[in-house]
């Protein structure tokens, strides 16, 4: 068997993807069901000269990776719901100060301590709006280990391209399930390296003056340019400002740089959508059951398809409208009270044809659960 074929947990696939992407610094705090990511990186990172630190809590973990990123490193932390809640203030700081970093949330059931060893997808809206204030955010997810790997690499690429934190929203089933991963060869997946300023020493460098294409070349802490980084609204020097024009321009920049690139950021998979009357929209572990049902019903004559979202935020409005507009019924399959359902209803011209198949009891949603909802929607009874 080839060395690059592995049988492992989703959390391990995430670690493999992060190392492939060039992760150099990880700070974290133990929490179920994400702990394996920290354990493995404590082992693997120093083997390649990288650094791992277990901080005193998740707040400190998030802060430490921001500090490390400013020195020019690719950085990541991993946690679950309660830890993700604690990270929200510093996550907002990374958005405001435009610091590339990757945050993995292997979701468990919430609120509060919730159900730590069971599955949920209840943090979708928290990923979007967990930190205060108007902002844009990027959130990716995946349903199998090959995609966990690819989306982890993508997360680093997006973080560097747009100078933004990227959230990887996995779940307990994908995190702990074991299946095959084929680790891509070096060079097989594109890697985005940090854009650094070409401004020479002694010439004024404006860390927060976007180029024409909206990107901001960085300069590593410890390098030739000294500048200020703050979570306050700031001018092109990075110095605090409360001038209305500065405040307005910065918030527009922070939101536009993500929202104007929704097409580049949107990742998805589609199965049998062209002639589908019935379309399932799903993501993460739930998409596995949705796909299973689609593959089961297709040979039996049901015109059913699946749109698997891999980018949850910014929400791909146009994609959903384009792919699902023609469907007779749309069922959103997720393990929460309908967090993506709301989005799909918002973007569809006929929200009344959008239904929910969900589970909120910590048990993995099955193809039969979805099938039962389908029959109700079809008026066939369960």
């Amino acid at each position, binding site marked *: 068997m080839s060395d690059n074929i592995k049988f492992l947990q989703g959390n391990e696939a995430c670690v493999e993807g992060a190392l492939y992407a060039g992760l*150099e*610094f990880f*700070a974290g705090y133990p929490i179920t069901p994400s702990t394996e990511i920290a354990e493995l990186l404590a*082992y693997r990172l*120093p*083997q390649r*000269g990288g*650094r791992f*630190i277990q*901080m*005193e*809590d998740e*707040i*400190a*973990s998030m*802060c*430490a*990776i*921001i*500090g*490390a*990123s*400013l*020195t020019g*490193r690719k*950085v990541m932390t991993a946690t679950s719901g309660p830890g993700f809640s604690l990270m929200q*203030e*510093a996550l907002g*700081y990374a958005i405001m100060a435009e610091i590339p970093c990757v945050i993995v949330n292997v979701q468990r059931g919430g609120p509060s301590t919730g159900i730590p060893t069971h599955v949920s997808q209840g943090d979708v809206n928290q990923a979007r709006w967990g930190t205060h204030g108007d902002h844009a955010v990027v959130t990716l997810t995946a349903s199998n280990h090959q995609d966990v790997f690819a989306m982890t690499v993508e997360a680093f690429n997006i973080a560097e391209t747009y100078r933004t934190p990227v959230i990887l929203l996995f779940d307990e089933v994908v995190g702990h399930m074991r299946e095959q991963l084929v680790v891509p060869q070096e060079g097989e997946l594109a890697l985005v390296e940090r854009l650094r300023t070409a401004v020479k020493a002694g010439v004024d460098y404006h860390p927060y003056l976007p180029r024409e294409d909206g990107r901001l070349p960085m300069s590593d*802490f*410890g*390098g*030739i340019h*000294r*500048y*200020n*980084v*703050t*979570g*306050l609204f700031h001018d092109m*020097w990075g*110095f*605090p400002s409360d001038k209305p024009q500065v405040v307005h321009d910065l918030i527009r920049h922070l939101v536009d740089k993500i929202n104007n690139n929704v097409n580049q950021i949107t990742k998805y998979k589609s199965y049998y959508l062209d002639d589908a009357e019935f379309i399932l929209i799903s993501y993460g572990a739930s998409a596995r059951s949705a796909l299973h049902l689609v593959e089961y019903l297709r040979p039996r004559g049901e015109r059913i398809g699946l749109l698997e979202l891999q980018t949850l935020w910014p929400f791909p409005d146009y994609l959903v409208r384009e792919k699902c507009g023609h469907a007779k019924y749309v069922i959103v399959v997720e393990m929460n009270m309908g967090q993506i359902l709301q989005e799909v209803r918002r973007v569809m011209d006929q929200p009344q044809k959008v239904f929910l198949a969900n589970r909120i009891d910590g048990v993995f949603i099955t193809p039969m659960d979805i099938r039962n909802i389908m029959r109700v929607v079809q008026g066939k009874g369960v």
Partner: protein
Amino acid sequence: MAIKEYIRERFFPHIWCPGCGHGIVLNSLLRAIEKLGMSKNEIVMVSGIGCSSRISGYVDFHTLHTIHGRALAFATGVKLSRPELNLIVPMGDGDALAIGGNHFIHAARRNIDITAIVMNNRIYGMTGGQYSPLSGYGTMATTAPYTNIDHSFDTVQLAMAAGATFVARTTTYHVQQMTKIFREAVLHEGFSVVEVLSQCPTYFGRKNRLGTAVDMMEQYKNNTTPVGSKAKKENPDLIERGIFVQKELPEYCHEYDKIIERAMQKIT
């Protein structure tokens, strides 16, 4: 290099009130750095939120003005990532020891090479004079209108107990000593804590009828005594100042370098 070279004049005037002690701290710190002959590119200053934290904006180093209480956690990330850089973390008393108390003791425990400065004015100044964990029992504050019943703790004792390998205290009156202590603290390899008693005439002084800034500084002269002095034995109410701890113990980033060596041996 002249002191002025370390300042970002573009960002002046500063926001501190007339009589505030924080400018004196800035002055002493820059004098210490100047005496050490350090280059501006090798210094990273990380601060949190509050009056004290604005110090980072005014100095021409790599500066990171972060969120309330977490400066040491950010600084830990910078330092572990680039151990060759010198980390200086000025904090207020609330910033360092209320909201940031956990990070403070854990940074000390790790003995990571960071110089932590606690600019202790015994009050939350920026929000308008609320009591801090160092205000002390019986003081007045806008959130203690009937007097404060919270007991304070001793920053020096706390830092020592948490494992800091350099611990000192001084005041804005004792500027020569402050510069000397800062030099030692920055040179020290490990976690250094310097508590500076810094007057806030606007809030702490006014609420507690301590007079002008000059009166408050004079009180530092009269209420403090060198570490281990005879005066302290005669009058236990005096606050000791000077260097309390200065010891060599393995520094965190050096220890992690050894981890890297061990990990690399394991794969070869």
